[in-house]
């Protein structure tokens, strides 16, 4: 695969309620990424935006953001899914040979609507939407299934939350830097058993942008390109009852494609830092298994071992992860941005020293129906 690099990144401070409009957020991050890349909007020859109609309250939402992202009179399209999938489209545009520089912008203002109504609409109106499924209670079904299958405990889930909120204290963009204990998580307000408030990501307003460039252009423009060494994606079946919710085969397939492309044989040893999509505390443990950082069912033992803490052999979510800020659609692209900052040595107080190889991960759909995995390198 021809080499493509991330040459510019930008993100907003993530907040529960931002006073910015959609246009203000999108204009801000587009300009931030351009400035970071040292280019102007005229150097961008195609744009991919990630917007969702229900979250935005605007249908064909892709067409509502072309002004603020500078995409008019330019090839532009929407990937209605997480920003990792948007970046995949931007990457493919360049690999097609028809484009050199892709701008990828993802955003959601979670504060403007009613998240429970929006996520209830994920589910099939012909079937189980009527029983009141939503993002939180469907995740609870998965969490319980995972616990039953492997004996993972709520305490082990809680450790993820403790770790990630503590990591967020060193991330100026994070919404929820917190000093909490396992006890605090276990005692927090139950939402849908076994998921409690502190096991759950917040509702967030935020946006981010990434600029990708082909190798020849990247070297001309950018002092610290971060290379996409490998990418993989895969999707599971739609209805929850048709899946084994504890099974991470689909993530494993996506990860293996990325590892093959990047020449990674032993992910635990060869990857220096990982940013994964922990929409709920239990998810980080499941994704560790699918990414091959531990064996199936080993997620609990992994968090117990301390390996994924800051200072451990493979720090996971030094940014605080999605538990600390969850701008829908943007959150996976933020993982790519955080991984990029790590590899550039620009991650400030959350820096993992000497990081050369990073992993970034995003999900789409209920209970991680789809996954997209990147291996990034200096």
């Amino acid at each position, binding site marked *: 695969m021809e080499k493509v690099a991330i040459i510019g990144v930008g993100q907003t401070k993530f907040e529960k309620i931002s006073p910015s409009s959609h246009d203000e957020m999108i204009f801000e991050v587009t300009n931030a990424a351009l400035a970071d890349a040292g280019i102007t909007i005229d150097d961008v020859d195609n744009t991919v935006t990630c917007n969702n109609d229900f979250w935005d309250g605007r249908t064909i939402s892709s067409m509502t953001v072309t002004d603020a992202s500078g995409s008019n009179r330019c090839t532009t399209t929407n990937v209605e899914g997480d920003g990792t999938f948007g970046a995949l489209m931007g990457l493919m545009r360049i690999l097609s040979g028809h484009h050199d520089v892709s701008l990828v912008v993802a955003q959601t203002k979670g504060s403007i609507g009613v998240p*429970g*109504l929006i996520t209830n609409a994920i589910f099939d109106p012909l079937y189980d*939407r009527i029983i009141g499924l*939503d993002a939180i209670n469907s995740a609870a079904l998965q969490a319980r299934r995972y616990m039953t299958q492997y004996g993972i405990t709520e305490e082990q889930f809680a450790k993820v939350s403790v770790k990630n909120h503590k990591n967020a204290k060193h991330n100026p963009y994070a919404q929820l830097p917190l000093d909490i204990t396992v006890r605090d998580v276990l005692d927090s307000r139950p939402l849908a*058993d076994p998921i409690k408030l502190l096991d759950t990501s917040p509702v967030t307003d935020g946006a981010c942008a990434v600029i990708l460039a082909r190798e020849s252009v990247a070297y001309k423009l950018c002092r610290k390109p971060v290379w996409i060494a490998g990418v993989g994606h895969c999707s599971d079946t*739609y*209805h929850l*009852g048709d899946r084994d919710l504890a099974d991470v085969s689909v993530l494993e397939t996506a990860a293996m494609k990325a590892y093959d492309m990047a020449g990674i044989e032993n992910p635990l040893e060869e990857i220096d830092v990982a940013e994964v999509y922990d929409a709920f505390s239990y998810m980080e443990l499941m994704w560790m298994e699918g990414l091959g950082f531990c064996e199936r069912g080993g997620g609990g033992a992994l968090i117990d071992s301390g390996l994924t803490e800051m200072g451990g052999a493979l720090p996971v979510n030094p940014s605080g992860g999605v538990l600390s800020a969850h701008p829908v659609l943007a959150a996976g692209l933020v993982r790519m941005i955080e991984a990029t900052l790590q590899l550039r040595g620009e991650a400030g107080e959350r820096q993992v020293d000497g990081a050369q190889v990073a992993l970034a991960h995003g999900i789409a759909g209920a209970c991680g129906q789809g996954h997209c995995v990147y291996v990034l390198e200096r």
Partner: protein
Amino acid sequence: MTVELGNTGTRIYPNRIRLRYNWWLGSVMGRFYRDLKEKKRIWGNTCPDCGLVYVPPKENCPTCFTKMNEFVEVGDTGNLLTYTIVRYKVPFVQPLEPPFALGIIQLDGADTGLTHLLGEVDLDDIEVGMRLKAVFRDEPQGNLLDIKYFRPL
């Protein structure tokens, strides 16, 4: 009409979208709800390639992609694969007042799980693996809640 928040100078525009839909069921789900309503029968269908029995039935096998033409009736009893107790309120879309239980039930004869509600059970007594039986409602309307909930067998 835009509204100022406090004295902040920030304005928001409260409004709502009113959307009505008539979704078409297709022949497979049409048959499922017709017989659920009129005969209290639960249909699945089976893939000729992998042999799995899907409940509710679907157009094609999600694994093999093969069209599924063979219908299989399944029982109204099954095992609880997973569950949760919902303790928060979302307006309009919840069928019961929280706290209420929902779960995934593998009906006898099916290879997949049915997402549904649990009832006539103390929430503290719910356990994975419980045997459950469908309780049908008195005035069926041709949707999933023609089964009111599943109760312990």
